[in-house]
């Protein structure tokens, strides 16, 4: 039995259930780094190349946090999850593509890194192959791996079903882990609907976005994100733009935004973006222009190492006030 370390960021927010179930089923212990803190960010800032964006720095911090606690770091190389885009070449932000190599150079005393390459462009069966490869590294037989893979798919499916019911991923993770019950989720008392779009590691990590979702809840706004929409709905949006973007998470954010801006009962859209994020310079402008065309209120919240709660709160409050006023005058 080995301890497998998984950083609590980036793909964690959407795909953790799968990998947790997979490794647990194989008899390993999954160790997750704690929720992001200032100390984690500071460590990341120290280790990562200084021009990196904050999510990548935070990733470095989470990986460092697992040193001494895990025998392996699970840092799969996410290349693609589907064949999508105008040329079928959708991939991830280049920083994801080089991530395992970056942490190897940047972080001292790193335990062995499991950097299985995940490229599902050729078909879904590739995921099983990736699992086999990962199982191989840990000395497992094909049969065992197949069983763990099936179990993992089932768990991920349960998670995805929760999302489809409108449960946001960070809450769905709590439910899957038994920390929360579905019945206990607050579903009433909202008088505004706000769509929040952006990368999962930006919108579901309360440290990164300085508690944005809680803030909205307090303001009695019900939050929708792209991750509760089905792939079918999301992908339908492709036809409304001249060309899809090249990055999986960016396409999801853009498609989500395009869908929500056409919904009458959505009062406004917030795009949360990490300071100096490359892909987002395109995503944000595109959403802004499209929202203008659709006459839908739009707010960009850009977060960085020094974002203060107060600053974000002022902007959110002003936005929410404006939406309420708009609702009242209609």
């Amino acid at each position, binding site marked *: 039995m080995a301890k497998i370390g998984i950083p609590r960021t980036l793909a964690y927010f959407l795909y953790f259930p799968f990998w947790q179930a997979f490794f647990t089923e194989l008899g390993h212990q999954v160790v997750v780094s704690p929720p992001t803190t200032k100390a984690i960010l500071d460590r990341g800032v120290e280790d*990562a*190349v200084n*021009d*990196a964006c904050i999510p990548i720095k935070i990733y470095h911090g989470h990986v460092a946090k697992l040193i001494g606690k895990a025998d392996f770091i699970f840092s799969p*190389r996410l*290349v693609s999850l589907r064949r999508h*885009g*105008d*040329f079928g*070449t*959708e*991939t*991830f*932000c*280049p*920083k994801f*593509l*080089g991530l*395992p*190599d*970056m942490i190897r*150079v*940047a972080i001292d005393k790193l335990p062995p890194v499991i*950097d299985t*390459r995940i490229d599902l462009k050729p078909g879904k069966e590739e995921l099983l192959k990736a699992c086999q490869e990962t199982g191989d590294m840990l000395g497992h037989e094909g049969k065992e791996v197949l069983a763990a893979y099936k179990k993992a798919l089932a768990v991920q499916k349960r998670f995805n079903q929760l999302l489809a019911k409108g449960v946001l991923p960070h809450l769905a993770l709590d439910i899957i882990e038994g920390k929360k019950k579905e019945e206990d989720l607050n579903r009433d008392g909202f008088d505004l609907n706000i769509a929040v779009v952006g990368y999962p590691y930006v919108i579901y990590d309360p440290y990164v976005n300085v508690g944005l979702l809680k803030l909205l809840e307090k303001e009695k706004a019900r939050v929708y994100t792209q991750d509760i929409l089905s792939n079918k709905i999301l992908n339908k949006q492709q036809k409304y*733009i*001249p*060309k899809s*973007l*090249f*990055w999986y998470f960016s396409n999801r954010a853009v498609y989500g935004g395009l869908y929500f801006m056409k919904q009458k009962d959505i009062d406004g859209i917030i795009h949360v973006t990490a*300071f*100096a*994020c*490359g*892909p*987002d*310079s*395109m995503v*944000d*402008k*595109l959403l802004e*222009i499209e929202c*203008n065309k659709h006459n839908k209120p739009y707010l960009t919240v850009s977060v960085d190492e020094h974002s203060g709660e107060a600053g974000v709160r002022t902007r959110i409050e002003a936005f929410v006030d404006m939406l309420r006023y708009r609702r009242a005058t209609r």
Partner: protein
Amino acid sequence: MKISFPHMGHSYIAFKWLVENIGHECIVPPEPSKRTLDLGVRYAPEFACIPFKILMGTYLEVAEKGAEVIITSGGMGPCRAGYYWVMHQYILNELGKDLEIIAFEPPLCDLKDFWRKLHRLRKSGGLSVREFIQVIKTAWEKIKAIDDIEMRSHEVRPYEINRGDTTRALWKALDMIDKANSVKEIEEARQEGLKVINQVPQDLSRNPLKVGIVGEIYVVLEPAANHYIQIMLGEMGVQTDRSIYLTSYTRESAIINREEDIFAVARPYIKEAPIGGHGVNSIGETILYAKHGFDGVVQLAPFACIPEIVAKSILPKVSRDYDIPVLTLFIDEQTGKAGVQTRLEAFVDLLEKRRESKKRERLVV
């Protein structure tokens, strides 16, 4: 149609000829200036990379001069460049500019679209297919000749006795290419041009430092974006070689894939390729320069350039393993010529000292 295109180094000479000989009016894009950048910065998203901003500014400038169509390249990722045209078009529309961008996506991705766009340019220019092919071939020869001439100038400059002679000769040679109108004339101009550059008075007893230039294509190819770094280094007495030329670029990335060799060299350091832009190339080429006995490498990249950040994070290890100093210059709208000069001078100083101490070591042994 009144056609324009992005400015990239001296390539406009060939593209201007191409547009005119297809039968269109060419609005030659001005060399990017402070004004170009200011315009770009004003209308582009804050965190767009600098090539995006400069092109944005260029498009607005040629729009003022009456351009109706921009011809540029597309791309299939993984980096932003392939999405430039979409956002440029969005922004131009928002500004109410009547400017259409025709982007050529890589023919390997969408051959039909590629032919459709070519067909449109040819038809509206009034050329037969045969004439059209001939014109394209000739333009290609022009680009190659321009690259040859420029390459030679970088070899000669560190030996020049009178500062600035080589650059003056380069312009003279480029002017000859500009005036050539057939494959034969281009070849003659190329020969003549090379001669003009070779005739620059030189001190061949010098043993210049050798520096390789790697990085993101636009800032490597556009001297106006990199503060004429190759001329600057040449005039400091340093011989530079750069990995990217338009001809090698198109040859490698679009038709033959010799890039694979570079990827293979880089593989011990980065297992994935490509990762967008020239990220993996920067790693592989640094190794190749080290193996070829270069004294140092300069990595040129736009500020916040995604693949080059990945490369930069890995280069320190390459630099240690191969014992070759690497200087990274990230360029943004605030980068000034003086700052670049100071950093280069310090770097060249370091390289000279290293060479000296290595020589001494050898003497002791």
